[in-house]
């Protein structure tokens, strides 16, 4: 979904207000919150309280840290000072904890493609849950998602997990996920710079 109407106004270090449209709030996987839409507005104002994050500086804001602001769109656009806006902040509503999906992994492996076969590949699997020995397994290409198939080459690394996924609605499904490792592409300039560095080190190491 592309967004054209997100607005952000910074009050300095303490507070930032985000204006997000309805879909961004309702569609968010971490904040699927449903507040009644305010008459006359096109969405919601959210008070992003940096202070609330101070207990855990590395935390992503959770539903509890995003608070609705009781201010109309027009009032907001014309009253932008921190004092004015703090005055119009309405009573804080603690939204209910959102229900989210959770997964239960029975086993995880990191695999390395050993060799390709007709219609598949054989891989060496390393147990990431620490309960089993390394083993070999054959995978048909059909089990690999189309977007990952170009990555199936000898030596390629992939991750395989088997487990359950419990949806927010309570449905449990069994999951087997294979995902190939993606590493960044280096630009021509990056590669040339790396070559230059290697050459410099080589010269230093071979210098008498």
């Amino acid at each position, binding site marked *: 979904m592309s967004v054209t109407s997100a607005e952000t106004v910074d009050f300095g270090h303490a507070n930032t207000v985000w204006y997000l449209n309805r879909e961004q709030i309702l569609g968010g996987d971490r904040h699927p919150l449903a507040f009644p839409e305010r008459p006359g507005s096109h969405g919601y104002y959210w008070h992003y309280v940096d202070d609330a994050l101070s207990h*855990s500086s590395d935390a992503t804001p959770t539903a509890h840290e995003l608070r609705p602001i009781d201010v109309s769109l027009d009032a907001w656009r014309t009253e932008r000072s921190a004092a004015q806006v703090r005055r119009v902040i309405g009573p804080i509503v603690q939204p209910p*904890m959102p229900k989210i999906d959770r997964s239960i992994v029975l086993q995880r492996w990191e695999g390395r493609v050993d060799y390709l076969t007709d219609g598949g590949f054989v891989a060496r699997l390393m147990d990431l849950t620490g309960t089993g020995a390394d083993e070999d397994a054959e995978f048909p290409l059909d089990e690999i998602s189309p977007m990952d198939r170009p990555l199936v080459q000898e030596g390629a690394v992939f991750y395989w997990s088997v*487990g359950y996924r419990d949806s927010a609605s309570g449905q449990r499904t069994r999951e087997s996920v294979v995902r190939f490792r993606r590493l960044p592409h280096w630009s021509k300039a990056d590669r040339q710079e790396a070559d230059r560095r290697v050459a410099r080190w080589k010269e230093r190491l071979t210098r008498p």
Partner: protein
Amino acid sequence: MPKPKVSTLGKNIQVLGHFNPRLFVPQWFADVGLLASEEVGDVKNEIIHEEIAQFALDWVSIRVTKDRLAASTTRVGHIEPLRDLVAGTLDLLTHTPTMSLGINHDYWFDFTDRDSFDAFGWTLVAPSNWPLMDRPGMAQLTVQGKRTDEREGYVRVLIDPQLDGGYRVNVGVNDHYQVDSTPAARCTPMIVEIINARWFDSIADSQALIDDLARLASE
């Protein structure tokens, strides 16, 4: 007391530094090979703005503000791809000024009844220390310890009972690394090195902490 059922809620990696959110459009990740072109065509919750870049795929959410890069997953089968995505991103942005790294592990404890839920809180925060309060209970607790490896930083555990009538407690383990005492040019490469070198130990250490807490809850 019955042992609570422990589930993994997800993992997230957060890097504090100075970022340009406008760079982090989904297509950039596809262009540099960190995400498949097919999957970035189906992003959700996309916001690209001077102050924030945010989008989500079915397995990962990314949010970049001027001072923070955060990527998270609730799909336990995708935690190594999460690591590769963040490490790969920083590998391409080695000149970005960064200061610290958090490898964060989120769990939840499901208690079977009110008694065991309350007892867990009272074990961690003794009500006898609060004689002036009526039925005091732990609403949230953060405990911080020194790192046991040679790196700078700390380990912080946040215990957050959900006071919504249920018996669930969210527990977050923040494995925090401070790198800003190293020369600025080396900070981001050092963060990449930490992510790759410490990943499995960080998971194992957080799991050990969680196992210990679960044992405490069942005593």
